[in-house]
């Protein structure tokens, strides 16, 4: 890197080393993140993915805290894919982590599986956590897939608020 920077400095004699470094980092910013471990067969889908450290997202948990296993994709866990392999949106989601941008209130999944989707955790991502792709479904227009970068750790997710998704009123 120093060799490249020295070469750049030679080219732009009048520019400072700091300036060259910032140019370099801007150009090669994406090189910080690699996605080889995702298992995604077609990494080109990430070309249209974006980083988002501004918006808040929802993630579900059956326990009232954010755990590492909660941030493992089904592929990582070794769970067999159970959807339609010809539905690319569904297939890609299998390698990502489902998150919902905080806009939508009612959530059908917690109604169908009240224990599995018991808690909702509001999160924000730190820079270089990974990339996000909007993957709206008919029932969930705010659905997104989060793809972890290879060196992802839970420190790259900020936890904001945890609440119980369902207030169970009915009795069987």
């Amino acid at each position: 890197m120093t060799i490249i920077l020295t070469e750049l400095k030679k080219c732009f004699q009048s520019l400072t080393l700091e300036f060259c470094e910032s140019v370099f980092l801007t150009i090669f910013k994406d090189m910080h993140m690699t996605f080889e471990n995702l298992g995604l067969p077609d990494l080109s889908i990430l070309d249209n993915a974006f980083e988002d450290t501004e918006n808040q997202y929802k993630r579900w948990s059956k326990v009232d805290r954010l755990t590492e296993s909660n941030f493992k994709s089904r592929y990582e866990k070794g769970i067999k894919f159970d959807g339609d392999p010809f539905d690319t949106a569904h297939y890609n989601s299998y390698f990502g982590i489902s998150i919902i941008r905080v806009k939508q209130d009612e959530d059908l999944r917690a109604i169908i599986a009240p224990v599995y989707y018991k808690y909702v955790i509001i999160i924000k991502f730190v820079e270089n956590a990974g990339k996000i792709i909007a993957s709206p479904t008919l029932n969930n227009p705010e659905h997104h897939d989060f793809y972890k970068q290879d060196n992802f750790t839970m420190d790259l997710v900020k936890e904001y608020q945890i609440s119980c998704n369902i207030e169970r009123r009915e009795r069987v």
Partner: protein
Amino acid sequence: MFKIEKEPTKTSLPIIKSNYKSLLYDEGSILFSGRNYLGTRILGSIADEDYELRKLRYFHILLSESDYTKFILKKTTYRELILQNANDIFVVDYPYDKSSYEIFRLNLNQIPNEYIPLEKSFCPDIPQKPSIQYSLRMIGKLANDHLIEITDLLKFDQNFPTIIRNGMKFLNGFGNTLTLYSQPRVAGSFILNYLIKIDDEKNPSCESDFFGTKQNIIRFLSTYMEYNFTKLCTELVRKRSIADLDVDSLMNEYNHLFSDFKKDTTSIEKLKNDLYENAKCIDAISTSIGTNFDQIEIYSGEIENADPIGIIDITNKSNLSIAIPEIESSDIKTYEANEFSIRIYQLNTDSRNGKALLKLNDEDQKIGFNISGKEKLSETKYSESLYFSQFITIKGTLKSQNGSYNLLIDFE
């Protein structure tokens, strides 16, 4: 995961062997359906996961075709179906790799209350795949013996194609013609199959669909059929008027698919009148509900793989049989003006009936007419209008009903 104080059951009855379909998913399936080795419908959902044992737990229930249809059409909830199957809830535990399974047949009391789906657990919206194939399945009574009365069969063959043709009529102008075929009938309970073929009028032998028009026509027809068998009946019963029918969903789909071909208000009026004609067709089809069969399910696509797009049951039948006569009686309009300007283009001098163009509010309206009296019609102003394509002034009474006009001409 909750503990089950019971040995696993040795059965594969609740295991999905074919027609697996995710009804709701994110990373994996949350709600899904399929068929077991006997072909019985199964509805299932994710219930829990054990991170340490690396296991996923699902609930599966076996459903009759009619219960499944009710669920798909949001007439019942997943919770209601679970409560209905209270003694036969199958808990299926899979290891992550799904290489094996353990099945427990439980009753509702053996499942912690917090796991039971909630009251609003209706089936999510499922995108229907547009299809050129439609099927009608009769269920119950005679149909369960794989029989249908010939009079019922004739009603189906006469009325169901009318509904499809009315949809196609709305799309005229794209230079395509539609042919409807009947496919071999299937027992189970009693299934009628129809196939639509859309040809390019200009190039009947040309199979290509370069601009995607045919595909868009099929997509619109699909939405149109869904509207007829889900929304139309409710709309007519609620509004009791043709003019007030809410056709926004249909128009939005049309505008989305054919953005370059906007429809004017006259076409929308015609669409509403056609929908009313469809309601009468549905009414005719449903005559034998309650006597020869219990209900009719409508499918788009191959019936084994498709979900129903609509249902006609005893409620629809009784609602339509009340709403239609009410609309009929309220919708007849009589025009007081007794002088009209018409140009006859078809005349039967024996029956004294014919067709003509009528000038009404500066527009030419196609009408049917009948000429009173017994006098000969040859060499009269009526035959003159026919031969010389001339507008003539006549006296008579004009009645309109559901967008169609009829003129009773006083012979002079």
